[in-house]
Structures are given as structure tokens and as C-alpha cells.
């Protein structure tokens, strides 16, 4: 896929992509550098090389392969900067406070174009809808209980503050910085002391806070309210506590209300960023636990492109960052290697996996070469117990008396139910007693019906076998991928042994690590090729696909054999470590080459629309052929 394959969208729904790029571009100079230092366990060179080119347009990771997508990974602070630029832009155009601009943008789902249009049309309405400004007071009966005036859903309590509303709202557009919220230490309205309407506290030391709507409450109640919103509801849009009041608290207000509670403040900031990321189809939050990075992938924004590409991205971070003791945990789980090996640095680097995920769907792994829709179909099929039912259907019958499920695994047709002792004929399911003298052969069954029943059963069985063929291979590679942790540990051991028993240096035994990594990667690809193969429609294309698959599989198994079985062999030919190294390196290169071919060919096939499915897939034509039995 070429870089000019930009997802263009005419609705003006999202950002102009150029602006977006600029936003991220301007601030990357220092940020990316420091980020690189923080993650210095990242020993893999090329993939996350954030060297800055002068020309911003050239993506940091140049897209050379047709099965890769262009993407940029962003830290939370970078996303915050991008948000800030949007805010500053809007704030400049409208001449409003940045805090107001923030609320406006959040309300409009960060859709700047639409916001500007609407704002130019009717600024007051937009300000009211976004919770920045109090609406013009609706003339109401000024009753003491708000519950009495049910008429307008947005109607608020008619309070004495209503006369001040227009005055307050006009101050929001002024440049007065502190206008967004006020502190009223003592109100002079009715009494000398302030009574919080939430907790009914009236101690003189109480600090009353209110938003532009002038509904005050004490700081303690605001704190409890904000924390409950953030913790329990995961909400960053925190409105005034008064019933029916739609005024939203600006960020500075939340910051002051949360006081020094660092955890909730961090959470609040994260929620704000998540809201921004979620409203922009070109961005996706890293799904790995504890990770706060974001990936920007403009070429995969939009459902329609997902039928032609598989947007696998990586957020640039590694490992599970939630615990600070990460570094200590990993070696302990591989005690064999950490104790004696001189390569502890590689231990951590091997197991601090990259955060690889799919930009287009919720699958948190590299499901190339198969596209999202088909991958999801396959996952669903594997999760469903429909296949279990299928098996039961094709292999068992029910006792016609007690309905127990019975599998006939041999013997004659004279069945005796273990449970209820009912004797019946397996062929006609009738009671055995009626068979009279025709022992062991059932002639009571309608010939035609018998043939049909057998056909149905064998069709069902064939479909099941087909599924199992693909599933077993898929599961096999999945299992091998899981076992690769063991293989890593074993390889570590071998690598350190090799340094002792042979003249190879640390740098020279790295070929083992490279081989294991290549192996794992290719198994992942192979695994998903079986999901793809199951759904591919018959034809020459499928045969070519299966040829590629076979070549890759052979290469993978050869390399695995050499790595896992090679230990014994290696002992024998200690003097010949050099030869082994050569063979493994060769095979690694070959495996990578086959993997490349597999991915490249399928990716090009998707772009050319070459693949046909045997089931209905979103974005593709309905299958023409009928492969009876394929569900």
C-alpha cells in the first residue's frame, strides 16, 4: 500500500489530516528523545527508531512492505500537547478562555470543523449546550421545590441567583482568568454564614465553591463528588451538583477540588486523554494493561479500509508497566537462566514483549495475514461450543426411553442403555424386543430413509473434520507460541553454555535469540493462516495460498527441530559449533523470507481484491459457491 492511500473523508467529521500531523510534529523533538531513553531496554533497533528527520512528512518508520501500515506511537504527554494545540486554536478563533475552548471541543467530540460552523451560527447556544454558560432564565413560577416545575427538562431551580446569570455569563468571554469559578467564603444574601446545600454543614471555616452558575457547595462535597465521578463512573465531564444544572466544571476547577490527591488527578487526566483518543478515528489507545500510549494510524481510520489491510501496530512500549518491580519479576520466573547466566540483560529484553495490537479490531495480537472481519469470525467459531454440539450430533444418539446421550464405539446394534437398562436397536431406535428372530440385523428400517440418514451423518462429519483440520493446526501453533517462553529460557541456557564450551563470544551467540524470535513471529503468522484457509473459497488462489503456507510451515518446523532438538546434537559436535551456528542462521533467514512472502502475497491479494471467501464477510461479495456444511 502506498503512502498516498490516505483515508479521505468528505464529511468533515474528523481532523484535517495535515493539521493532525503538524500537531504531532511540532512537539516531537525533545519528547521522543526522552522517551527513547526511558525505554532503553528496547534492544530491537529498527522498529522504534525515533530519529527525527527534518522533513516531518516522512514517517519515522518508513513503510516498505505491503503488509505493514504507517503509524506513529504517541505518549500521553504528546497527545496532551496535541489536545492543547487544538484548544489554543479554537480559543484563538473564538476569543474565549482556553478552559472554555476545552469544554466546547469535548462537547463536540473534538470535531473542530463542526464546532466552528455551529459556533459561528449561534455562539450562545453552543456555549449553553457545552455547559460553559447558563441559559437565559426560563420564566418559571419560582416555587421552592424544583420538583414542582416539571415542564422543561432543562429547567433549573429558580433561585435568587437567576438575576445574576447574565452578568456572570458575560464574564466568561472576558479575559479575566479566574472567571471560570469563584470562591465565596461568606455570602451576604440571607445570613452571615454559608450552609452547604449538600452536607448541611454551616461551620464558618467552610469554603464555598461554585461554577459560573453560582450554585455553591462546600469544597469537601465537591471533592467527594468529583472523586466518585472519576473513580466510579470513569467520567471526566463533571457537571454542577445542582439538579438540572448542566454547567460543566473546567479542568482547573477539578484540579483545585481534587487538591493533592495525585492518584485521582492522574486518573482524571487519563480519562480526558482517552476521551480525546476515542473521538478521533485516527487514534487508538494501547489496550495493554497499565499502558497509556496512543497510536496514530491515519491509513486505517475507517471501516471500509479494513477489508484491504491489516493494521497491526505497536505502541512502542514493552512489558507490563503497571508494576515498578517489573525488572525484578521477570528474572525470578526464569530462575534457571538468571542465576548463572551472564546475559541477564537479554532475559529482560526477551520477555518484555512489545505491545503489539490491531488498530482495527479488539484482537490484542498480530493476526496478520488475515483481515479483522475473518479473524473475528474464526475467533467466534472457536469460542462457540457449536462444534461440540456438532460432534455430539454426528457421533451420538439418544436413548429413546431416558434420553441419555450414547456414543456407540463398537459392537453390534443391540444396545442396552447403561442408565435405564432399556434395550433398543441402534439402527431403527425401536425396542429390541420387536426385532423378534432377526437378531443383529435390522430390516425394519425404511431403505430410503436409511440412506438419507447416513448421508446427513456423513456430511455433518465431513464438515466437522474439515473444521478440525484447521482448528488443530491453529491450536497447535498457538500452543507452540505459548511454549515459546520455555524455549526462551532454554535458549538462554544454551547461549550461556555455548559461551563457556566454545570460543564464541556473547555477541556471536545472539543468533540463537534471533532464531527464537523469528520462530515465534512466524508461528503467529502460520497460526492465522489456518484461520484464513478455513474461510478461503476454493480455487487457484487458495492453492497458491496453501503452497505458501506449506513452505512457511516446513521452514518453521525445520528451524524448530534444529533449535529444540539441536541440544543433544550440539553436545556431540561441540567442535562444530560454528557449523551449527551457520545452519541456524541460514534457516532463520530462510524462515523470515518465507514469512515475508506469505504476508506480502496475502496483503497484495487483499489490495487487489483477489481473495474470495466461502462465507459472507463484511466488505466482500457474498460467496457464489456453496460448500455444504461449512458454517
Amino acid at each position: 500500500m502506498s503512502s498516498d492511500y490516505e483515508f479521505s473523508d468528505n464529511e468533515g467529521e474528523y481532523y484535517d489530516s495535515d493539521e493532525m500531523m503538524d500537531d504531532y510534529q511540532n512537539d516531537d523533538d525533545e519528547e521522543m528523545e526522552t522517551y527513547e531513553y526511558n525505554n532503553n531496554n528496547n534492544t530491537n533497533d529498527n522498529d522504534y527508531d525515533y530519529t527525527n528527520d527534518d522533513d516531518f512528512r516522512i514517517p519515522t518508520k518508513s513503510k516498505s512492505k505491503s503488509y505493514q501500515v504507517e503509524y506513529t506511537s504517541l505518549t500521553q504527554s504528546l497527545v496532551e500537547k496535541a489536545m492543547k494545540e487544538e484548544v489554543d486554536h479554537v480559543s484563538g478563533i473564538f476569543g474565549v478562555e482556553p478552559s472554555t475552548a476545552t469544554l466546547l471541543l469535548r462537547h463536540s467530540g473534538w470535531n473542530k470543523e463542526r464546532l466552528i460552523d455551529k459556533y459561528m451560527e449561534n455562539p450562545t447556544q453552543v456555549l449553553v449546550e457545552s455547559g460553559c454558560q447558563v441559559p437565559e432564565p426560563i420564566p418559571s413560577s419560582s416555587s421552592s421545590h424544583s420538583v414542582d416545575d416539571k415542564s422543561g427538562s432543562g429547567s433549573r431551580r429558580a433561585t435568587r441567583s437567576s438575576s445574576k446569570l447574565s452578568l456572570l455569563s458575560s464574564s466568561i468571554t472576558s479575559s479575566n482568568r479566574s472567571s471560570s469559578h469563584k470562591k465565596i467564603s461568606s455570602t451576604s444574601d440571607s445570613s452571615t454564614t454559608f450552609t452547604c446545600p449538600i452536607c448541611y454543614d454551616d461551620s464558618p471555616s467552610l469554603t464555598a465553591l461554585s461554577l459560573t452558575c453560582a450554585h455553591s457547595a462546600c469544597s469537601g462535597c465537591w471533592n467527594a463528588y468529583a472523586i466518585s465521578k472519576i473513580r466510579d463512573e470513569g467520567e471526566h465531564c463533571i457537571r454542577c451538583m445542582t439538579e438540572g444544572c448542566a454547567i460543566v466544571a473546567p479542568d482547573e476547577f477539578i484540579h483545585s477540588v481534587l487538591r493533592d490527591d495525585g492518584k485521582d488527578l492522574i486518573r482524571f487526566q487519563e480519562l480526558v486523554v482517552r476521551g480525546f483518543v476515542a473521538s478521533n478515528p485516527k487514534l487508538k489507545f494501547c489496550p495493554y494493561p497499565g499502558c497509556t500510549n496512543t497510536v496514530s494510524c491515519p491509513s486505517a481510520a475507517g471501516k471500509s479500509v479494513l477489508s484491504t489491510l491489516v493494521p497491526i501496530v505497536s505502541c512502542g512500549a514493552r512489558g507490563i508497566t503497571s508494576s515498578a518491580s517489573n525488572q525484578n519479576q521477570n528474572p525470578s520466573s526464569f530462575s534457571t537462566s538468571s542465576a548463572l547466566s551472564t546475559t541477564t540483560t537479554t532475559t529482560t529484553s526477551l520477555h518484555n514483549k512489545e505491545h503489539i495490537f490491531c488498530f482495527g479490531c479488539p484482537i490484542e495480537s498480530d493476526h496478520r495475514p488475515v483481515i479483522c472481519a475473518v479473524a473475528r469470525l474464526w475467533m467466534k467459531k472457536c469460542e462457540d461450543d457449536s462444534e461440540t454440539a456438532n460432534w455430539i450430533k454426528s457421533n451420538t444418539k439418544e436413548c429413546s426411553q431416558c434420553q441419555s446421550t450414547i456414543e456407540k464405539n463398537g459392537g453390534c446394534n443391540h444396545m442396552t442403555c447403561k442408565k435405564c437398562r432399556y434395550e433398543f436397536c441402534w439402527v431403527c431406535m425401536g425396542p429390541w424386543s420387536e426385532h423378534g428372530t432377526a437378531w443383529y440385523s435390522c430390516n425394519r428400517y425404511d431403505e430410503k430413509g436409511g440412506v438419507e440418514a447416513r448421508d446427513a451423518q456423513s456430511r455433518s462429519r465431513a464438515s466437522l473434520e474439515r473444521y478440525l483440520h484447521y482448528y488443530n493446526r491453529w491450536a497447535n501453533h498457538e500452543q507452540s507460541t505459548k511454549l515459546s517462553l520455555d524455549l526462551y529460557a532454554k535458549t538462554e541456557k544454551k547461549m550461556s553454555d555455548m559461551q563457556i564450551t566454545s570460543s564464541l563470544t556473547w555477541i556471536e551467540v545472539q543468533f540463537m535469540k534471533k532464531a527464537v524470535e523469528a520462530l515465534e513471529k512466524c508461528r503467529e503468522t502460520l497460526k492465522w493462516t489456518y484461520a484464513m484457509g478455513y474461510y478461503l473459497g476454493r480455487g487457484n488462489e487458495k492453492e497458491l495460498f496453501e503452497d505458501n503456507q506449506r513452505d512457511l510451515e516446513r521452514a518453521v518446523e525445520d528451524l524448530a527441530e534444529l533449535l529444540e532438538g539441536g541440544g543433544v546434537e550440539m553436545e556431540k559436535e561441540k567442535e562444530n559449533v560454528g557449523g551449527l551456528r551457520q545452519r541456524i542462521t541460514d534457516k532463520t533467514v530462510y524462515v523470515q523470507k518465507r514469512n515475508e512472502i506469505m504476508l506480502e502475497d496475502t496483503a497484495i491479494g487483499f489490495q487487489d481484491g483477489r481473495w474470495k471467501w466461502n462465507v459472507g464477510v463484511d466488505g466482500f461479495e457474498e460467496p457464489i459457491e456453496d460448500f455444504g456444511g461449512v458454517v
Partner: protein
Amino acid sequence: MASISSRRLSKELMEIKNDGCPVGINLVNADDFSTWLFTIEVMGDSLYQNEQFTLQFRFDQQYPISSPAVQFVVTEGRQAPVHPHVYSNGHICASILGNEWSPVLSVIAVCVTLQSMLASCKVNQTTYRPIDNDRYVKHAPENPKKTRFHYDGEF
């Protein structure tokens, strides 16, 4: 220090004792700060004339930040009013008890709202329970706050 919840409830109770309840609403029991009971009658010309219902409030520690659990009592000969927003197990589908709850509302305010909800009930509605009554009552949690209502009416 007493929690916000008990401080607030003691103030509300004091106000009720000083100023009394609105017409038709009577405090039956408020011995602690976890469960209060009220009787509620609809005054004037209405479909629930001469009927008295019992309303139960349950408060958690987060009150008034979180809403109270409010329902009609349906035991000991008590019935829930037949109303399109009241289930036969006493649960009430009212948005102010859920997503439109505001900490500024009080126990009395909720009572008054529910009273006016009953008062505004039209003639042709009195024979109805909510349409999904049977299904809901069968599976309803004990605490109405655990139900996620979809508010489709005015209340």
C-alpha cells in the same frame, strides 16, 4: 467525625421535625441513618384517593453523593400503587433516583416528586403496570439501585 451521610441525614431529619412534612407525607420511622419509612397519600382529586402507600428509603455511606434506594413497601398488607412506572415488587422507574439524581435533592424532595408522579397519572393508565412487569419482577435484584433502568417516560 461523623460521615457526610449521617450529618446530612441528621440535618434533614431535624428539618422534617421542625417544619413538618408536606401535606400527604408522613414520617413513620427514622431510627437510624440507613433506612427510613414514609407514608404517602395523594391529596385532592386523584385516582389514588383514600389509598396510602409506604415508601422505603435506604441510604449508603456515599449519600447524598450517591442516590438513596427508594421503593414502595409491598409486605404486611401494603401494596405498591398501580402505575406504569411502578413495578409490582415496589421498584420505581424514575430517573431522579438514577442518572438524574443530584446531591441537592433531599428525601422530602424525592417524596414530593413521587407524590406528583402519582397525582399526574391519567385515568387510562391506572390499570397498568410497566409492560415488562412480570419479566422484571421475576429477575429483579433486591435493591432497586442495582437495576439499570431505561428511562422512557417523563419521570
